[in-house]
């Protein structure tokens, strides 16, 4: 079925494995995580075995697709042993042939294989073994090099440990490092941010993700904000910081290829994350993982599957119906159109009118004439570029991406 793909389906699949355990839970985090001060070999083995069961049951939904990316996310996936990671990578490699390679199985995949690493828990002695296990890209949750901010964020690690981790990663031969940075933390100044950016750049990462601290309602930070015990960053300061980051990183040779993501070159963009933004197929395995299934005859706009966010519930589903661990959401045409627009606009290339028309049978203006006009008039959207009708955000529009995006979805 690989020959069946068209302009908006690359015919491949990315695989995401969610390893939800954390030694402690950060107070701002609303991901699907499980607190596990000590993971323990038995628990790890059981989780790995369940993942393998799910992979076996789910792979047929993505039959014939080439493996395009592999991503171990969390949680803190580096809590798992290199042996477990290797076992999982081998199993995924065996399940899907790599692109341009028909000989599946028997060795770890050579496509982009990312492991999220947490400086507070990594045993850097393990990094060479992760490398040997097939990991070729690390995403390191540094967040800041400022101990005061790290403490305020409720992080367990401090800057020296982050530095040790970065050194160890380079020493182990990793040549594709991504560093996560949180900004607009409580009390953070533009001076603080400048110092963080300076040190970040000294480490010469290939990729940088920057996240403004978000107060999610169901987190300790969110509750503290609602109770008036914490203040979020002033909107103007957060806007200035966003511009500060963009200016500093661009001047250092990074391209802002997505709202929150920068890379040195096109080849070091996150292949895996781009699959979500470009609405390509992804098989998500593990508690709380999300899958995106490509369109098919019965599903003209594809489907999503969200696995249960509770460990016990996911395990129960593995026991009873491992092919259907998550609830399916069939995408409507209107929902898909809105997503196509807002996801594309978050990326530097913006929305391709041709690709949009190929999927929805009309150019963006056919469906969103009034919205596009209003956004252009406000100076938030730019039309044209390589192809007439293409749309992308202006500098101003990037600061207001959610306001722009909201124009293209249905009110509920």
């Amino acid at each position, binding site marked *: 079925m690989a020959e069946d793909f068209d302009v908006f389906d690359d015919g491949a699949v990315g695989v995401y494995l969610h390893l939800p355990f954390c030694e402690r839970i950060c107070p701002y985090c609303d991901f699907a995580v499980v607190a596990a001060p000590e993971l323990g070999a038995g628990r790890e083995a059981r989780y790995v075995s369940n993942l393998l069961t799910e992979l076996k049951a789910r792979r047929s939904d993505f039959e014939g697709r080439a493996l395009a990316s592999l991503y171990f*996310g969390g949680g803190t996936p580096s809590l798992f042993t290199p042996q477990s990671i290797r076992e999982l990578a081998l199993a995924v490699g065996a399940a899907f042939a790599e692109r341009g390679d028909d000989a599946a199985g028997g060795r770890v995949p050579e496509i982009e294989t990312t492991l999220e690493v947490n400086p507070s828990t990594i045993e850097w002695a393990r990094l060479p073994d992760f490398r040997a296990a097939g990991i070729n890209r690390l995403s390191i949750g540094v967040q800041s090099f400022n101990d005061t901010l790290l403490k305020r964020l409720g992080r367990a690690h401090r800057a020296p440990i982050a530095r040790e981790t970065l050194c160890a990663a380079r020493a182990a031969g990793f040549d594709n490092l991504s560093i996560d940075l949180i900004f607009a933390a409580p009390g953070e100044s533009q001076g603080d941010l400048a110092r963080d950016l300076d040190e970040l750049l000294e480490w010469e990462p290939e990729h940088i993700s920057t996240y403004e601290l978000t107060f999610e309602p169901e987190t300790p930070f969110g509750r503290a904000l609602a109770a008036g015990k914490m203040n979020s960053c002033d909107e*103007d300061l957060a806007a200035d910081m966003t511009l500060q980051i963009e200016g500093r990183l661009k001047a250092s040779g990074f391209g802002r290829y997505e709202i929150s993501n920068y890379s040195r070159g096109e080849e070091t963009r996150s292949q895996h994350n781009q699959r979500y933004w470009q609405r390509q197929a992804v098989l998500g395995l593990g508690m709380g993982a999300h899958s995106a299934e490509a369109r098919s005859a019965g599903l003209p706009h594809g489907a999503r599957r969200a696995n249960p966010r509770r460990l016990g519930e996911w395990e129960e589903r593995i026991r009873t119906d491992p092919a259907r661990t998550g609830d399916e959401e069939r995408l409507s045409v209107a929902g898909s159109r809105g997503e196509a627009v807002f996801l594309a606009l978050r990326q530097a290339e913006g929305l391709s009118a041709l690709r949009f028309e190929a999927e929805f049978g009309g150019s963006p203006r056919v469906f969103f004439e009034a919205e596009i006009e209003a956004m252009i008039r406000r100076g938030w959207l730019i039309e044209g570029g390589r192809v007439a009708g293409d749309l992308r955000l202006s500098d101003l529009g990037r600061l207001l991406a959610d306001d722009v995006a909201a124009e293209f979805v249905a009110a509920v």
Partner: protein
Amino acid sequence: MMTIDPALIRNFCIIAHIDHGKSTLADRLLEATNAVSERDKKDQFLDNMELERERGITIKAQTARMNFTAEDGKTYVLNLIDTPGHVDFSYEVSRALSACEGALLIVDAAQGIEAQTLANAYLAVEANLELIPVVNKIDLPSADPDRVAQEIEDVIGLDAADVLPVSAKTGVGIDAILQAIVDRIPPPAGEATAPAQALIFDAYFDSYVGVVMIVRVVNGVLHKRERIKFMVAGIEQEITRLDVIDPTPRSVDSLAAGEVGMVIAGIKTLGDIKIGDTITTAAKGAAEALAGFQEVKAMVFTGLYPVDSEDYEDLKVALEKLKLNDASISYEPETSAALGFGFRCGFLGFLHAEIVQERLEREYDLDLITTAPTVRYLVVPRDGDPFEIESPAALPESAEIHEIQEPVVLATIHVPSDYLGAVLGLCQDRRGVQKDMGVHGTRVQVRYELPLNEIVTDFHDRLKSATRGYGSFDYDLVGFRPADLVKLDVMVNGDAVDALSLIVHKDKAYGRGSELTKKLKEFIPRQQFPIAIQAAIGSRIIARTTVRAVRKNVLAKCYGGDITRKRKLLEKQKAGKKRMKMVGSVEIPQEAFLAALRLGDD
């Protein structure tokens, strides 16, 4: 047909401050005369609405008839006429009092005289009633009946020796009260052979029989199936039913001079009759109505709007139903650019307004936005006749106005002397003019003239908190006085927000204006352009604040594959925008109105 000898009738009421035990005492009297069987007994028989019970306020008057065999061996008919216990119904209270010859004046043995005790006592004295002072709750450990009896003598001028000590809770002293009613209260005067004159002192709507009127026959006799005339309303009807209430209705063939009972005469709505009107017979009727009738007028007005515009019809139906039971509510449709469709409602006073709003929300399950209460103003234009307005929107341009007059009340306030300073400060702040002050032991009674618009929102609450709940307050409307009043408008980007317009005293306009603009700023989200929020008197801006244009609105995280959640957040954001009210080109969330209208309540 048996008529009762007027010499064996006693008509009385009970007057008391809230919580001094009026309802409990009424229950004991009914029990002692076996008017209420144990089975019928609710805790407080006379307070029949849930809300009354909760607030301890009797909203609609009721009445009950008891038979009591006195020491002289004769059986007397005692009619207990209940009076509405709160100040906004003072006219109705005065009508109920004029249906009696005497009153029990109840004072709490621990708390002593309060503002309402006094206000009601004055009303009773004005109505020429024989007062029987009763000190209640003598069972309380903190009771000091002798001190309170002395206070009654000092403040009201009733002989301390005549004070009856009672515990309505334990029943001590109840028989003495019944005997005193017979001994001290005069029997009704009135001529049974004269043309009929009956005073309507209360009425309520019953869904089976229509309007039920509670009357005191002053002269003559009313008969069942007789054609009667309402002398003020000018209508004629036939009596279909006559009842006495002992304490549940029991049909009778006639009511004669001195008696109290219910008249049902095929009247469909309360609006058709008037409290204080005189009923006479259509044939050979009385030449004149009884004295004391007044047209009752709403004094406090608010706009009531449903939070959800789809509830408009429900609100309309609810108001119609409430009006069936309370003819003093008035309402008419009103449209606000900011709040949509609603009603301008008139009430007798602010307590009345509060109670009606609570009933709408509680009994009819409506979510309401209430605009700031306003009072009735008298506008004297440069040209033409003076006229009254009920809404800030009706005020003409200031150039056309010669003078605005506002209603003024005489407020009676009772406080422990420790809190006097706080109370004087509060009254001063509310533009009060002190009339007199009297000290009785540790308590002070002070009287102020206060503009009604200064007490409609939060005066009562402030008084309570300034005196830790020990201060009490009563008021009586005394008339209209000229005042330096202005209309304060709130504008967003130059467009007036009609729902927030107010009439205020000039000296208060600035403070009020800056409070309002600040509060709105808190709740109006930043939009694509800067928003100027201004408070203005006419064309003069007196307060201004700005909501800056939006700088940034982008959620950083969009990975991990949960695109659905991101889409739903955006969909919610869009829906939130749709729910906002547009004033000019500015989107204002409903919470902003609620917060601005709640100012002053906090």
